[in-house]
């Protein structure tokens, strides 16, 4: 019982360090699905485990025990956690629920704002050019979603580069990538240990769109150089924004991918200049096994609590 209820709490911590390496090594589309699914499943299992631990405290409240017709003696002897641990779990669960509510409200509001913005943007076409000298471009989720490109960004790119940019942003909209990042962030809100996984998903959707753009324009190097140009132009356009420098030495070429301090843009460019990522079924299977383990443990723990309650019920003497 004890292992089954504590393991789902520990698995996010075990999984999180692998999120970054997985995001670099797997095919980005697979990585996005896998990491998002794993984050949601692990967050769900760990929240359930917290709930089970907290329930052990709740059922020991005499009033609750009498309402449920449970024997306090049996509950006190066989519950998975001491009262301190159970109370701590209750506090953590409460904090998680509050954080989830806050996140859902903020994210829904932001998405509603984006949908409104997408509807209000001038013109009927998918892409909108805004009169702004700073180089920037983004996909705005909506119904339909829009692609916003500043005049500064258009000026920084040549015609094939613009095609690559539009293909990248179209891939975001067509793939509903904001749903993946939102789901992963939600999981990380429920279980903060999963934050590296949410960050990894935010990276893999970019890689997904990059690879899709490379397929559409038929040239990985073109996409790589377009990203590079766009990023340099965007930085030149906002000199006043303070960005903390990443720590560490400068690496070149494919070794960027191994460089933990590198930001997403150099890593995306390096990934496109390297050969396309292979499908690695062993890694996929390993992650799925870990998620299955969390699920089984949570189920066993839930089942154990149920057994305990029925045992307490049979020993209850009114």
């Amino acid at each position, binding site marked *: 019982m004890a292992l089954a209820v504590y393991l789902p709490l520990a698995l996010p911590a075990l999984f999180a360090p692998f999120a970054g390496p997985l995001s670099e090594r797997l095919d980005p589309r697979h990585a996005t699905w896998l990491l998002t699914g794993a984050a949601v499943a692990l967050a769900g299992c760990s929240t359930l485990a917290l709930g089970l631990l907290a329930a052990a405290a709740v059922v020991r409240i005499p009033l609750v025990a009498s309402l449920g017709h449970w024997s306090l003696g049996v509950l006190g002897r066989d519950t998975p956690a001491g009262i301190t641990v159970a109370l701590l779990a209750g506090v953590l669960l409460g904090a998680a629920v509050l954080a989830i509510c806050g996140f859902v409200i*903020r*994210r829904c509001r*932001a998405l509603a*704002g*984006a949908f*409104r*913005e997408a509807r*209000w943007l001038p013109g009927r076409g998918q892409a*909108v*050019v*805004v*009169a*702004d000298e700073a180089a*920037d*471009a*983004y*996909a*705005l*989720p909506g119904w339909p979603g829009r692609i*916003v490109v*500043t005049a500064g960004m258009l000026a920084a790119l040549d015609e*094939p*580069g613009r095609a690559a*940019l539009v293909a990248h*942003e179209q891939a975001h909209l067509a793939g509903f990538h*904001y749903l993946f990042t*939102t789901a992963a962030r939600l999981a990380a809100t429920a279980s903060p240990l999963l934050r590296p996984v949410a960050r990894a998903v935010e990276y893999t*959707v*970019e890689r997904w*769109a990059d690879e899709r753009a490379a397929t559409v324009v038929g040239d990985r*190097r073109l996409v*790589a*150089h*377009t*990203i*590079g*140009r*766009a*990023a*340099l132009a*965007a*930085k030149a356009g*906002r000199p006043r924004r303070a*960005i*903390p*420098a*990443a720590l*560490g030495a*400068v*690496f*070149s*070429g494919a070794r960027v991918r191994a*460089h933990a301090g*590198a*930001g997403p*843009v*150099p890593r995306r*460019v*390096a990934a496109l*200049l390297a050969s396309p990522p292979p499908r690695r079924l062993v890694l996929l299977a390993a992650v799925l096994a870990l998620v299955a383990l969390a699920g089984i443990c949570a189920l066993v723990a839930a089942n154990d609590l149920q057994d305990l309650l029925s045992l307490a019920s049979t020993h209850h003497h009114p």
Partner: protein
Amino acid sequence: MHRMPHTDPPPRRGAGELEAAVLSVLWQAGRALSPGEVQQALTGQAGAPELSYSTVVTILSRLHAKKALGRRRDGRAFRYAPVADEAGLAARRLAAMLDKEPDRQAVLSRFVADLSDSDEALLRRVLADDGGPGGS
């Protein structure tokens, strides 16, 4: 990008919607309007929020502070008109949106994230090593 300094307290919920409604009235009018005329035009619109005169004045002065509206004195009140064309205004609104809370930024898929100085150096090395288009 035109980044507006936010000196006033953050606008409460729905403020963006009200600002958009007021702006669309001013675009459609095609001339400078007094707050009373704006309020009247808003009341005539189907589905538009019912706004008090003072709310309209507040929205107009906020938009003026954001440099989305120009104004000139006309008697005791001001008359307001949009200073930007639609595209320019869209740019301003989006810039303001990007500057707001991180959740707003999170739902936009930006083509390129901000580069740190070391990322910039790294990126230049990678592109130079590869040569070819844009490798300078």
